[in-house]
């Protein structure tokens, strides 16, 4: 997150049909001149935000897997559990519930008609 500051932009990521309710999928954020980034997009239609986006990289298990975790709530936080070692990451803040010093990136994400857009 260091380096030259660039103004965040909205990017089209995928279609709403690509999403799985109550679960996650992985989408690739491709931007000219930047490394591709794996984004885990979670679709919880009954929540106010409906969509949540985290970095797909699990810093504990050290693999790109968070989109494949189980979604739920714990102690009032909406979370995804890493499929590798089961740490829980807050869908709203990216914080790891088991270790407050660990977190994953969180992205703003929105629905524009049938498109999912991400701010990065």
């Amino acid at each position: 997150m260091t380096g030259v500051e660039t103004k965040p932009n909205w990017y089209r990521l995928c279609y709403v049909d690509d999403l799985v309710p109550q679960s996650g999928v992985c989408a690739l954020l491709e931007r000219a001149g930047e490394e591709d980034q794996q984004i885990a997009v979670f679709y919880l239609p009954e929540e106010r935000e409906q969509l949540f986006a985290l970095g797909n990289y699990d810093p504990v298990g050290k693999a790109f897997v968070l989109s494949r975790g189980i979604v739920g709530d714990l102690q009032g936080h909406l979370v995804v559990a890493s499929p590798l070692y089961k740490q829980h990451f807050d869908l709203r803040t990216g914080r790891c519930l088991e270790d407050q010093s660990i977190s994953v990136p969180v992205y703003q994400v929105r629905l524009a008609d049938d498109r999912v857009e991400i701010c990065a």
Partner: protein
Amino acid sequence: MSVLKVVVVGNGMVGHHFVTTLAKKDLDVEIIVLGEEPRIAYDRVHLSEVFAGREASDLALASLDTYAELGITTRLGDPVVSLDRETKVVVTQSGARFNYDMLVLATGSYPFVPQVPGADHPRCLEYRTIEDLEAIKSAALGSKRGVVVGGGLLGLECANALQNLGLDTHVVEFAPGLMSVQLDAPGSQQLRTRIEGLGITVHTSKNTTNIKSVGSKSLRMEFADDSSLNTDLIVFSAGIRPRDELAKASDLVTGERGGIVINEHCITSDPSIYAIGECALHEGRVYGLVAPGYRMAETAADRIAGGSACFTGADMSTKLKLLGVDVGSIGDAHAQTVGAQVCALSDEQAGTYKKIVISSDGKKLLGAVLIGDCDNYDTLLQYQQNDIALPDTPVSLITPASGTPLLAANALPKTATICSCHNVTKGCIIDAIEAGCGSLADVKANTAASTGCGGCATMLKSLVDDELAARGVVIDKSICEHFPHTRQELFHIAKINSLQSFEDMITHAGTGKGCDICKPAIASIMASLWNDHILKPSLVSQQDTNDTFMANMQKDGTYSVVPRIPGGEITPEKLIVLGEVGKKYDLYTKITGAQRVDLFGAQLHQLPDIWRELTDAGFETGHAYGKALRTVKSCVGSTWCRYGVQDSVGMAILIESRYKGLRAPHKIKSAVSGCTRECAEAQSKDFGVIATENGWNLYVGGNGGMRPRHADLFATDLDDATLIRYIDRYLMFYVRTADRLQRTSTWLDSLEGGLDYLKEVVIDDSLGIAAELEEQMSHLVNTYQCEWKTALGDPEMLKRFRRFVNSDGNDKGVQFVRERGQKRPARDDERDDVIAVAS
């Protein structure tokens, strides 16, 4: 009464602990924090993790917002430069003046740099602050070698940091050994061996006399013994010196070798001024560890709030991981107590060294040194701190053969420290329970016990369980926060009410949205009851990733594929198909312990293609990913073997074909042996069958793995039909009544009435449910489908098998290297750096 004005100089870990402790007290107080560093207090202890990829900002212990919420005024990046005790005023560098009623000096320390010519060279650095880290990082760019001066605790931490930066790392120590304060000579030697094994070069008994510039970016260190060492940068980490200049300038009493003298209340020679942490000198001693600093902070906060706390010195026992090596030091590690006796065990092969120091009468533990294995640290610390009488043969405390003789929680006195991070005693925990804490989570939230390093978790749990049980409290057996029920209860709720989805279950019997504990548990119950396809839309979000993708996730996020090979019997043609598929998709191929073939390294999008080829060749899914029947292993039996008395392969195939796909609380394994020689190892299985002259003997509740258990003989000389009937009932009874993730072995052990009761239920039908159990099993057998075959025919289900939903791009996170002719996941040090992109 006017508001008490407390000014705190310094915002390190101890200063931070002080202000948060004081702010939470019920006291009318104005707190002003003045810090030299530009950022709010951070975790200096874990500084080296910044080199291992952690963000510096992640180390922060608080934020300005949290300080503001606590009513604390904070001024950072502006050090206090003068102190007038007469008028009770401090002045910062920028000229800001602050009056105080009470002043707390938490100015910390600075790294000691020996007075060596050349030590002021710009490539000679220090290691204490985040700014120091930035300087080390930029100096390391383009450098090959880095030297740490100092082989103590901090020095080795720093060596770890340099190695993480990719430097050829050397440690130069003045003393003859590493960590000479905490370790004895053999312990120090063992540590050295381990560290050198990691590629770090250690130089001891080296007195640096000169540091010369060689060219623009290199240095040469010259030592008193005429040897020398070339390097690109040097980091000094050879101990600390208290920051006492402010105290000296204002004539507070300081020690000869530095440090602000304090009494047991942490008050300096001026009754309005406290000093805490590394700047303070207590009974001739400066404490360079964080825990004693915290105790001082608590003492000072308590006194200011009108309490009577005392700081009586602190235990310097330490347990830590240095460069991945466990190191522990307790009490009198050097056996300096008169008459002390020593027991030591050195295992050069395992790279461990353990020593205990015992009082002359052999009754008390005085100290200990542990290298390479700190499992016994907590127990030894309890013995030493609480003067607990040692066993008759104290050496048993460190011998591996006897196992760790854990000190039971109920043997400890109330004064025993359970959690040393937060200084929580057994007494505190009992008080918390007396005051109404009714669960482990309550106790943790209330006392902070076990919320630091977590090393005391096991002991805390057993203490809390014991204390609650002693009070007649029923231990909460809810599977998670969403359902106040056991798995067995949930099974009955689902069955009686015909609930068919997770949503139905949570509406009917739970709260919230569910989690990774209850969702798969209920998915498994649904499967055992109704046997729908696991990728049915209403079920898909409840499955663990292995069930969702019908493959086993490996450490790098790729999957392994295990086709079913019933009984371990396979035709050459099918074996060739496995080989061809493995070759085509470049899969790592291994024979499993269960007579199957495992194909590793498949990516999500490859799974359907792989399975299409496998199902075309007649393979079915092996359910290696599910909590389900895995495999029925067999020996070759009477068909070929000279000793076999029954066709064990035929029976194994019959059993495996019958129960394949059966979802259960945990995985189920089985085996069939063709004679009493038991080559299929059936007695280590959840259920095992061994041939006799007259039929089959059935064994139940066996297990290999972590807690091996020999299966119990359940029934003898059964004919085929009776054998299957008993297995039907046994398995279904287990599926209904076991806890989540409880194997048959522990289920049987926990079953009230044990084996005899199980025989009554299964053989004598004492509960009158045998017909129902059989009927339910036959429903499951009749509704079996190969999950992969069904999925391949359903484009909606296959939609999930995409690496990325919006791109066919490669997953750069998945990287392989080749070893012994096959691929395997790349280790961290073999990977291209794609992680940085992700974080």
